[in-house]
C-alpha cells in the first residue's frame, strides 16, 4: 500500500455517505449526490491506476467520466418531468 492507494481508499470510503443521500432523500438531492459520486469514483480509479502502475485502470477512469456525464444528463430529463 502506497500513498496513492490510501488516497483511493479514502475516496471510496467517501462514496458511502453519498449512497445514503441517494437512497434516503428525494430525487433532486439524489441526482446531485449521483453526480458527486461519479466524479469521486473517477478520481479513485485514477489513483488506483497510478498506485498499482497498471494503466488499464486509467482507461476505466476516462470511460467512467464520459458515462457518468451522459447518465447525469439522462437522469435530469426525468427530474424535470417529475411531479410529486
Amino acid at each position, binding site marked *: 500500500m502506497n500513498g496513492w492507494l490510501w488516497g483511493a481508499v479514502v475516496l471510496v470510503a467517501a462514496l458511502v455517505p453519498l449512497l445514503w*443521500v441517494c437512497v434516503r432523500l428525494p430525487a*433532486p438531492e439524489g441526482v446531485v449526490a449521483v453526480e458527486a459520486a461519479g466524479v469521486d469514483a473517477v478520481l479513485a480509479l485514477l489513483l488506483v491506476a497510478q498506485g498499482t502502475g497498471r494503466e488499464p485502470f486509467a482507461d476505466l477512469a476516462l470511460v467512467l467520466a464520459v458515462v457518468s456525464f451522459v447518465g447525469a444528463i439522462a437522469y435530469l430529463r426525468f427530474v424535470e418531468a417529475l411531479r410529486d
Partner: protein
Amino acid sequence: MLRDLVVGALAGAGVAVQLLVCLGVVLMRDALDRLHYTGASTLGAACLCAAVVVSESASLIGLKAILTAAFMLVTGPVVVHATARAIHLHREAQR
C-alpha cells in the same frame, strides 16, 4: 526531494477537496445548496491529475489523466448548470 513534496501536496489537496465536496453534499439542507459543492469537485480533479502528471513526467497514465481532467473541466459546469435548471423546472411544476 522537491518533486515528491510537490506530488504529495497536490495529491493531498485533491483528496481533501474531494472529501469537502462529499461532506458538503451530505450535510447541506437544500438541493441547490448541495449543488454548490459538486461544482468544486472540478478543482479536486485538476489537482489529482496534476499530481499524477508531475510524479511521472511522460507516461500513458499521465496522458489519460490529462484527457480525463480536460473532459471533466468541460463537462462539470455543463452538468451543474443542467442540474440547477432541472431542479428549478421541477419546483415550478410542483407549484
